[in-house]
């Protein structure tokens, strides 16, 4: 009998990390979110979150805007079209993986 071989698309390594995935999951549902909100929602440390936001920004998945709220600095993040597409593709690939029955 001919064996049917399933080929999987690899998961986007940039999104396949707990904190970056959580950040993208927050940003996909809102117009924009500030650093304080993302930090509170994820419970991540400021340093770690900063590094991960930089990685997502460098990939063009999010836009990071630094502004001022009174005298305080405010970092606003919003998802880009590229980020939205990457997230949708990541979820689609995940679904493919989960459809395969485990032996």
């Amino acid at each position: 009998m001919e064996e049917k071989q399933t080929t999987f698309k690899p998961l986007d390594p940039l999104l396949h990390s707990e904190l970056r995935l959580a950040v993208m999951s927050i940003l996909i549902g809102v117009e924009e979110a500030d650093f304080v909100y993302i930090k509170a929602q994820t419970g991540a440390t400021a340093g770690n979150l900063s590094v991960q936001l930089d990685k997502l920004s460098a990939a063009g998945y999010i836009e990071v805007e630094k502004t001022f709220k009174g005298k305080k600095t405010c970092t606003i993040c919003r998802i880009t079209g590229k980020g939205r597409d990457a997230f949708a593709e990541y979820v689609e690939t995940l679904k493919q993986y989960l459809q395969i029955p485990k032996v």
Partner: protein
Amino acid sequence: METIVNKENLSTENSLKIIAETMERSRKTIAKNLGKPLILWGCLVAVTALVIYFLWSKTGSPVWNLLWFAMSAIGVVCNIIMDKNKEKAPKTEVSRIIGKTWMWFGIFATGFYFLIWVAALIMRYFELGNIVVANMTLVIALLMGLCGVITGVVMKMKSVVACLVVATAISVVVALICNGPAQLLVFVVLGILGLLIPGMILQNKTKQN
């Protein structure tokens, strides 16, 4: 709250769990206190309508309707104070649609009264006779009902839609039957059934979450 660390070796099940949990947590934070503005405006509308009703009935002068402008100013100030005190949450498409819908209701309702007032003054000044005044209460009731139904539909809350449909139906009937100060009862109905109760339903639902 569970802290999300930067783990790179995720299982597919774990990935989906993170996506679902983070989205749900964020959604709950955003939905928090969404009913409070409706409760505030519901109380303001109902109380102002009752006050104007009594003053108009006692004095026989409709000039007390100017209190609506005072109510709008009080409402806006209270809204700003409430916004400052509440937990900061990002704007979503849903909150933006609801906010803009009610903002435009305010502009239309206030603008409508203002235009009629200006038109009446001009007509009187140039002695052009009386303006054809539409049933303002009916127009405002319909506008308010429509905005409320949009809120309910966007929030996916059938109970809010039902409240607004009933409130608008009662208001339209009262607006067509009653004249003079009695028309203000429309706003008591709209304030309580169309704003206050839907606000309480929303607030209760987000508290349960």
